[in-house]
């Protein structure tokens, strides 16, 4: 199948790739670009494991086509922080034990980052409302919600 040429800014770096029109952004990220931090749980928009930021907005990358990233800015979990410079959300997830198996974690962190970027002082209900599109089967959400609230408090102090 003919492939389209796409230019995008991926985690701050201008990136070019070729993809088939039928490939989702998730597939492109994982299979073509080797960014496997973004996870696939359902491939139809119901679990949030594949969440990335597209021009600052949270999207389920399984429901976006690879060609739609043309000219856009894409941020994945790999672009949010690294071992030397963890994002406050990442640190809070570690300190609050907000992950068990961890497969939902990239999606939650990406999604929560979008929330805190827009609403730094989101309260518990707001956090729960915002994260309702991300499924976690291990934690019962309690520690995830606490971690997001903790990160929000720390980010506001800083």
């Amino acid at each position, binding site marked *: 199948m003919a492939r389209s040429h796409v230019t995008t800014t991926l985690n701050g770096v201008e990136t070019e790739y070729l993809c*088939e029109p039928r490939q989702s952004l998730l597939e492109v990220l994982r299979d073509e670009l080797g960014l496997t931090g973004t996870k696939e*749980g359902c491939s139809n928009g119901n679990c949030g494991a594949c969440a990335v930021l597209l021009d600052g907005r949270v999207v389920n990358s399984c429901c976006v086509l690879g060609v739609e990233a043309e000219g856009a800015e894409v941020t994945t979990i790999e672009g949010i922080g690294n071992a030397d410079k963890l994002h406050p959300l990442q640190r809070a997830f570690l300190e609050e*034990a907000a992950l068990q*198996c961890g497969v939902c974690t990239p999606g939650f962190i990406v999604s929560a980052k979008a929330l805190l970027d827009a609403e730094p002082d989101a309260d518990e209900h707001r956090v729960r409302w915002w994260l309702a599109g991300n499924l976690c089967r291990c*934690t019962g959400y309690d520690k995830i919600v606490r971690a997001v609230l903790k990160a929000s408090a720390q980010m506001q102090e800083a």
Partner: protein
Amino acid sequence: MTTIDRPTYRIVGTRPIRPDGVEKVTGKAQYGADVRLPNLIQGRILRSPHAHARILSIDTSEAEKTPGVFAVLTHKDFPVAEDKIEELGESAVNLKELSDNILASDKVLYKGHAVAAVAAINGHVAEEALKKIRVEYEVLPPVLDVRDAMREDAPLLSETRFTKSMSGQASDKPSNIAAITRFQGGNVEEAFAAADHIVEREFTTKMVHQGYIEPQNSTASWNSDGTLTIWTSTQGAFVVRAQVAEVLRLPVSKIRVIPMEIGGGFGGKIPIYLDPVATLLSKKAGRPVKLVMNRTEVFMATGPTSGSSIKLKMAEKDGIITAVQAEMAYEAGAYPGSPVGAGAMTMLSPYNIENFVIDAYDVVVNKPKVSAYRAPGAPVSAFATETAIDELAKAAGMDPLEFRLKNSAHEGTRMVTGVPFPRIGHEECVRAALESPHYQSPIEGPNRGRGVASGFWFNAGLQSSVSVAVNVDGTVNLIEGSTDIGGTRASLAMQLAETLGIPYDDVKPIVADTDSVGHNDVTGGSRTTFASGLAVVEAAKDIQAQMISRASKLLNAPEGELRYEDGAVVSSDGSKRIPFAEIAAAQGRTGGPIYGNASLMARGVGGAYATHIVDVEVDPDTGKVTVLRYTAVQDVGTAIHPSYVEGQIQGGVAQGIGWALNEEYYYNEDGTLANASFLDYRMPTTLDVPAIDTVLVEVPNPGHPYGVRGVGEVPIVPPLAAVANAVAEATGHRFTDLPISPRRVVEELHGLA
């Protein structure tokens, strides 16, 4: 948190950051689907469109000719599997049935049953090729419900299956009832005749799925030297190796299973589905092959847990539960092996009940073969008993927790199997629940109610091996073989650091592949922190002994005058002391590497109890049940890392709430699973559960040096009944069928059913 009678420790009981944490929050951790290899191609599986059919022929010729296709596979490519049972830890499988479930041979037994597979240059090409495979079926009538399947005139899944009982074969005609088991004690007739109150109810529950977010996956490479490498997400790499070896008739030494990070399992990632298919595709294609299920496949074709039908009669006299009679039937799915026995053995375990008869039926139906799901079998049987107990408490005019306390099992009480309990903590849990701020607070407002329930799970011991290598810089590598599904690298590293008296950060745990560490059974049965923990403590003692012998050379003192203490070797008079790091640094000139091992079959398993309290509000117009407040009390033995213990409890509670209120396998008459997606199979979201409070009661398990009890499974046992009891309080109506979904609530409250 309530702590009973346990010593305090330096590291055990603290909350350090897990060693694998940074990798997991930055997206670096490699899960099964993340495997990337040179020349890797993708596999896809063709699945049956019928719930019950005979396969007459399969024509793969067109698929094979498709450009980009490297290999096509059917059951004919499998060696003939033996009709024998293999123990998997917490569950057992018949190898012929396991093989037939991986790729159907003569019959398909559920819609979604795998029939053929293709490996191609990419997944899209493989999917196109699947459409070109022609399968001719003779469609047979399916049987979907456990009670229907038990009828004499039901369609048979197998013409050669006869009912087994403890005394041998129990039917002279083929049957869908694979097995009947009876547990019996005392004299129920007399007890029922003398009772003050009797409750008699029938309960039903539907199949539900473990719902792990990561779908099953397997990548296999058939190597040119005839060896095989498998990368997969599994609860037990050694158990994958054993199953693949049996199904494909390969020596285990030729198979190396590399466990990748795992995205949840809850029992569902013990049986194999994809590994032999990926293996044979790779062998045919001459390239490594990756198979990853999509979500629909996960729902249709991987083990959910049983739907059930339970008839229960229970009697009370003077506040004492005097008799129980139960007849319980669990759906096994396509092949025998439901957890009905475990359901029967756990349902009365929180209590001391003299007279009982329990008949347990294992029944096959045209739905996917069930696999273990967190305390397999116990939640639905507890749903029945804990509902009846609630009603009896009311009839006896007693508080439901006081009633449970009065009837509680304790050390010496016999289980239904006749085995007496060691030290257990049910009474402590009920007392802690009674004293909890939650239970002490009033519940007010219309349509609101509070429910309680208790639960029990055995926990498992099984086999573990670990090695500990001491590095010259004083750090240690902990080489283990237990899948880390929720923080066990941390809980094992903590036990090692505690026993060696070294900093937690100096321990580097590694989950090794099957070529690199001794045998380890699955991460299941809530056993890892307990059993692999026992092995860690043993290996640490091995290291201590070696340290003493090295120190004797360094200190010029006889070994008999030295002892290991707080991360150092000291002389008995205290005059000489040499720390761990110094002995480690000198290992090269005192006798070579210091390397400790332990391999064991864990004994001394401590059973786990939990008592839960929940407040709900029911909207009588929409039927929606809102969970307002939840408190879970649990005897955790000793919490090595309390945060991860709490996490296990909270996760189990959320799954239990989903089971009680929303989750169910919804089948059409033709055997189509109508809700095989996360949209329609409604698992709880952040908005469906409240904050979940935990109370950790610590009644140390005498069978473990730090008192560890397994904690992962029991928290899913009480919620079904606790929620149902709360709904009964809120509405004045007893719901005996799960899930208590909005539709059911409206129908039953308004008499529309």
